[in-house]
């Protein structure tokens, strides 16, 4: 330790400078993550109970179907020939393969063991023992929102 009575002005001002600068840096290092946190991320909201599809409603043609992600499982969106939008879980109730839409049959079909589901999700032929879970669809303008329903 030094033997001076008091730290010289240079030392004192160094300490003050150090304190000031590091305090400012500290405040920035706290405020930076907090302010980034406050800005909502692109995904907007958690997608547990409902998913807004990146597909526009008018782009879904009648008698077509496509797979989309719902939470952690695949789901299938179908527009019937009559024009109605429907969505179901795409996990086959037999052995969990992913189903697909068959426009030639106007049915949902599982390629693994030839299971057939009608457009209400009912298992109509083949090994699947249970119907597909149906989801609720709401269309807001050209946005399709699929949710689990009650």
């Amino acid at each position, binding site marked *: 330790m030094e033997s001076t009575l008091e730290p010289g002005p240079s030392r004192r001002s160094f300490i003050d400078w150090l304190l000031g600068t590091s305090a400012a840096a500290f405040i920035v290092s706290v405020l930076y993550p*907090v302010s980034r946190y406050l800005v909502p991320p692109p*995904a907007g909201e958690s997608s547990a*109970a409902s998913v807004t599809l990146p597909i526009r409603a008018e782009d879904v043609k009648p008698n077509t179907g496509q797979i989309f992600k719902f939470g952690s499982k695949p789901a299938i969106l179908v527009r019937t020939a009559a024009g109605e939008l429907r969505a179901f879980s795409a996990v086959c109730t037999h052995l969990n393969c992913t189903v697909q839409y068959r426009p030639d049959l106007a049915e949902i079909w599982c390629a693994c063991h030839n299971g057939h589901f009608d457009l209400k999700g009912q298992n109509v032929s083949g090994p699947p023992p249970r119907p597909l879970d149906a989801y609720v669809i709401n269309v807001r303008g050209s946005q399709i929102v699929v949710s689990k329903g009650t």
Partner: protein
Amino acid sequence: MPSAAGSRGRLWTWLDERVGLAEMEKLVRKKQVPIHRHRLWYYFGGMTLFLFGIQVVTGILLLLYYRPSAEEAYESVQFLMAEVQFGWLIRSVHAWSANLMVAVLFIHLFSVLLLKAYRRPREITWVSGVALFGITLAFGFTGYLLPWNELAYFATKVGTEITGALPVVGHFTLRLLRGGDEVTGATLTRFYGIHVAILPAIVTLILGLHLYLVQKHGMSVPPSVERAGGPRRTMPFVPDFLLRDMVGWLSALAVLAALAAFLPAELGRKADPFAPAPIGIKPEWYFMFMFQTLKYLPSTILGIEGEIVGIVGFGLAGLFLLLLPFLDRRAEHGGRSTIFTWIGIGMIAFVIVLTYLGYTASPTQ
């Protein structure tokens, strides 16, 4: 530093006229902290307060993204961890700071107990402190359920089940806590309300009282120091003690940051009420000693169900703690109360040993 009002600047003077800053400053500067060989323990109260402050700030930030329903809670936390910028940091700090706060709170409680700072005139300070301890444990218990994951679900189930074993009021309390007979979404929403509204309101009042009383009575001097003639010197609270406090707080913050980066808060699997309980469910570590004690008790003691004896026993221990200033008559009159010192040491040993056993004993015992 010079304290004359005039050299302070115009802003300070303007505020002083309206809010009375000079008076406040005088009050704050009055506070002196005694210096003696036990002064290390003086820091733990402030540390607890600091960590509580962190909880409030991170908790409010979490509120912006969390959803308190059984269908969405888990996913909202998942979203927070994965998509929100620094969401992992806020959540991990919140989780770790909770643990750290309880640990520091234990140290604060037992150091105050062993240094007999509950003596007159600080009895109400002590009582409010024990109440704060209970509230903190309640914060921990309610907060733990909020991510609605497997571990939390079953820990809550077991914890509320134990409440249900209380005589007379057990079933009613269980229903009150769970919002029904089982742990469901209703429980989650209820715990959420308790965690973010009810407990904060209560804690504001009691903490305010506690801090006011600490300011009013100043720092207590341990009996051994008093007997030796009192502390030879003191240091002003502002700025000396406060600067030292801040060193401690910043160190704690550094530890929290490291913990958040290397051991981020886990999420596990979503709660499934229909799945069987996983082996080795454990409560949070600060409940472990009670949990483990209940496991060791025989199924009946003197005709009463063992679990109830255990719960009532802990309740009585809590009551003992609460009424400690009024029971320790010797210390009140300035004498040695070695019995209470030994009781305190015994409690510490009990908590440590049973917590250790809780983590090392096989879950299928």
